[in-house]
C-alpha cells in the first residue's frame, strides 16, 4: 500500500462568533477574515511539510477547494507545479483540479503536462466532482455537472495523449478547434488518472475507465459498496479484473508516540468536519441537480410528514443519490470515538494506527492507496511534523509490505 500525505491548508483563524453568525463558512464568507500574513505563514508551513514527506519517503497529494475556511488551495495546478519543482522523489497526486468548474479543460491538460515534465514523470492526475459552494464561487451550473465532468476528462486525456498536431473537439459542453499542447507530458500515454466518488453509478463509470478510485471519509459500508460497483461494472463490461492498486481510501490519520498523544492531536483533525463543513441551504439541500427530483420529499422536508416513511439514508446511498448535504450533516456532529469507529479517523500510536488501517482494509476488501488528511484545523506545524515522521518511519514501511492483490 502506498501512502499519500496531504493538508488542505484550512484557515481556522476566523473569530468563532463570525463563524457562528455566518450561514456558510464556504462560498460566501467575506475574505476580509482571511489575513494574508497568516495565509503566507500557513502556505510556508504546509509546503515545508510536503517537502518533509518527500524526505521521509511519503507521496504527496494536493486538493482544490474554493472560497472558504476549509482550504486555501484554490489553484491546484499552481500548487502541483510548486511540488513538482521542490520535491525530488515523491509521487505527486493532484486530487484534483475541480475540472467541471473550469471553462477550458485544454488549459488544465497544459498545466498538468507542464507539472509532469517538471517533475520528470512523478505526476498523477485526479478528478473531483466539486461541491455546491464551489459551483457558486465559480459560476458553474450545478445541473449537468456530471456529464460535464466526464466530457472534460475525455478532452484532457485526449489532449495529453495526442501528439500529431492539432485536433478538434466539438462536444456538448466544450468546443476547441485547435488542441495541441506543449510540452507534451513526460509519462506515456499520460499520467495515471484517479477519480474521487462515492455514488455507485459514478463508481461504475470509474471502474469501466480503469481509473484509480478514491473514497473520501465514506466509512466501511459506503466504501465497500463503491469498490464493489467498480468491480461489477468491469465484469459486466468484460474488462479484466483489477487489483487493489485501483482503490484508494482517504481518511484522517495522525500518529503519536503514545496512544494518548495520537488520539489527542488526531482529534484536532475533526475540525474539518465539525467546523468547516457549515454550508447554507442554497449551496446544499436546495442546490438543483445534486439529487434526482424524486428525492425532494426527503431532502426538502425538515420533518417527515406524519404518514410518510422516515427518510432512509441507506436507501438513498444504495440508489446512489445520498446528496453531499446529507453526508455533511452526519459528519458535522461526529465525535473522536465515532470517527474512529467509522474509519474516518485513524489515530493513536504506530501499532494502533497500523491495526486500524488494516482492519478497515479487511472490511472493505482491500485498497492500495491511503490518502491521509494529516493536518487540519488548529493542529500546529510542530505537531504535524512529528506526526509525519512517526507515520513515515513506523507505519508506512509496514503498509508498503501490503502488496496489490486481486480481491473480490
Amino acid at each position, binding site marked *: 500500500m502506498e501512502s499519500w500525505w496531504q493538508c488542505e491548508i484550512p484557515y481556522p483563524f476566523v473569530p468563532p462568533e463570525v463563524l457562528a453568525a455566518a*450561514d456558510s463558512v464556504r462560498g460566501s464568507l467575506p475574505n476580509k477574515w482571511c489575513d494574508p500574513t497568516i495565509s503566507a505563514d500557513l502556505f510556508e508551513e504546509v509546503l515545508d511539510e510536503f517537502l518533509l514527506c518527500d524526505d521521509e519517503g511519503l507521496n504527496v497529494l494536493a486538493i482544490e477547494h474554493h472560497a472558504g475556511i476549509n482550504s486555501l488551495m484554490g489553484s491546484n495546478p499552481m500548487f502541483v507545479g510548486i511540488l513538482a519543482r521542490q520535491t525530488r522523489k515523491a509521487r505527486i497526486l493532484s486530487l484534483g483540479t475541480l475540472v467541471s468548474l473550469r471553462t477550458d479543460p485544454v488549459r488544465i491538460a497544459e498545466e498538468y503536462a507542464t507539472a509532469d515534465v517538471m517533475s520528470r514523470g512523478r505526476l498523477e492526475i485526479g478528478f473531483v466532482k466539486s461541491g455546491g459552494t464551489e459551483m457558486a464561487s465559480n459560476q458553474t451550473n450545478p445541473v449537468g455537472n456530471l456529464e460535464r465532468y466526464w466530457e472534460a476528462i475525455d478532452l484532457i486525456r485526449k489532449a495529453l495523449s495526442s501528439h500529431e498536431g492539432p485536433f478538434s473537439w466539438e462536444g456538448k459542453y466544450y468546443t476547441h478547434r485547435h488542441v495541441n499542447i506543449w510540452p507534451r507530458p513526460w509519462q506515456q500515454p499520460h499520467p495515471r488518472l484517479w477519480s474521487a466518488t462515492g455514488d455507485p453509478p459514478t463508481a461504475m463509470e470509474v471502474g469501466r475507465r480503469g481509473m484509480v478510485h478514491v473514497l473520501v471519509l465514506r466509512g466501511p459500508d459506503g466504501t465497500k459498496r463503491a469498490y464493489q460497483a467498480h468491480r461489477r461494472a468491469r465484469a459486466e463490461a468484460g474488462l479484466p479484473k483489477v487489483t487493489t492498486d485501483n482503490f484508494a481510501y482517504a481518511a484522517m490519520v495522525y500518529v503519536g508516540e503514545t496512544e494518548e498523544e495520537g488520539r489527542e492531536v488526531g482529534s484536532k483533525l475533526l475540525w474539518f468536519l465539525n467546523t468547516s463543513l457549515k454550508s447554507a441551504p442554497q449551496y446544499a439541500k436546495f442546490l438543483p441537480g445534486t439529487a434526482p427530483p424524486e428525492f425532494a420529499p426527503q431532502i426538502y422536508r425538515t420533518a417527515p410528514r406524519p404518514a410518510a416513511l422516515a427518510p432512509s439514508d441507506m436507501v438513498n446511498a444504495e440508489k446512489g443519490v445520498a446528496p453531499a448535504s446529507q453526508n455533511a450533516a452526519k459528519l458535522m456532529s461526529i465525535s473522536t470515538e465515532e470517527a474512529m469507529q467509522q474509519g474516518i479517523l485513524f489515530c493513536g500510536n504506530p501499532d494502533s494506527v497500523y491495526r486500524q488501517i488494516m482492519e478497515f482494509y479487511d472490511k472493505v476488501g482491500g485498497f492500495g492507496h491511503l490518502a491521509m488528511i494529516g493536518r487540519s484545523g488548529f493542529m500546529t506545524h510542530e505537531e504535524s511534523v512529528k506526526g509525519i515522521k512517526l507515520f513515515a518511519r513506523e507505519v508506512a514501511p509496514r503498509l508498503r509490505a501490503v502488496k496489490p492483490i486481486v480481491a473480490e
Partner: protein
Amino acid sequence: MAEYERLDVRGIDLEVLRRGSGAPILALHGLQPIDPAAAFLDRLAGRAEVIAPSHPGFGGSPRPGDFDTVYDLVHLYLDLLEALPYERVTLMGFSFGGWLAAEVAAACCHRIERLILVDAFGIKVGDRETPDILDIFNTHPDEVVRRSWHDPERFKPDFNAWEDDALVRYARGREALSLYGFQPYMYNPQLRRWLARIAVPTLVLWGAADRVVTPEYGQAYADLIPAARFELIADAGHHPEKEQPENFAGRVIGFVGE
C-alpha cells in the same frame, strides 16, 4: 392528473392547463408551472381561455435530453402558436416565461394579438456591476422569499406540509430553471436590441414591491417595446397574479378587451 391535458408539439410532449372560454391567452409560466388552484385563473375564466403549458423539464412535461436552452423553448412556442386552433392569441409571460414571451414576440408576431409581460426576466438593464435579477440559486432561500413577496409571511412555502408530488414537481422546476437560465443569469444579451421588432400592443405589468426584479427594470423593459405601456400592481411582489389575483385579472381582461 385530471386537470391537465397533453399536447404534442413536433414530438415534444407538454402538460397543459386549459381553463375558461373567450379570448385565447397562451400563458408561459415563470419559476414554476401555474398552479391549477390559482385564483387568477378563475377570475379570467369567464372572459378568456387560458392555455398554460408546463415548459419541458417543469411540472409533468418531460424534457428531451438535447432540449436544454432558451433557444429550444422559443422555437417550441413559435411552433405551438402555429399549432393552436386560433389565428391569433394573446401571449402572456410571467417572470422567466416573460423572457420567453418577449423572445417569441421579437422573433415573430404573426400569431400574436397582444403581449403581456409580468415581472419578466430576459434583458440586461443595469451596468456590469449591478445585477438586475436576484440570483435565486445562490441566495439564501429566506432572502429569496423576502424579496419575492409583498407579504412574505403569507406566501412562505412550508415544504413539510407539501405533498410528495408537489415537492418533486418543485424540484424538477428548479433543476430545469437552472439548466435554461444559469448563464448569463436569466437574460439574453442580444434581446434588448430586438425588442423594437415587437409590433403588437404590449402591457408590461409589475408588482410594485418586486425585489427579484424591480419596477425600474420593468419600466426600462416597456420603454424598449414600441407599443408598450407599463402598469404597477400595488401590494404585490414578483408574483402579482398570486398576491393580487383580482386586480391582476382585471388588468388582463381590460387590456385584452381594448
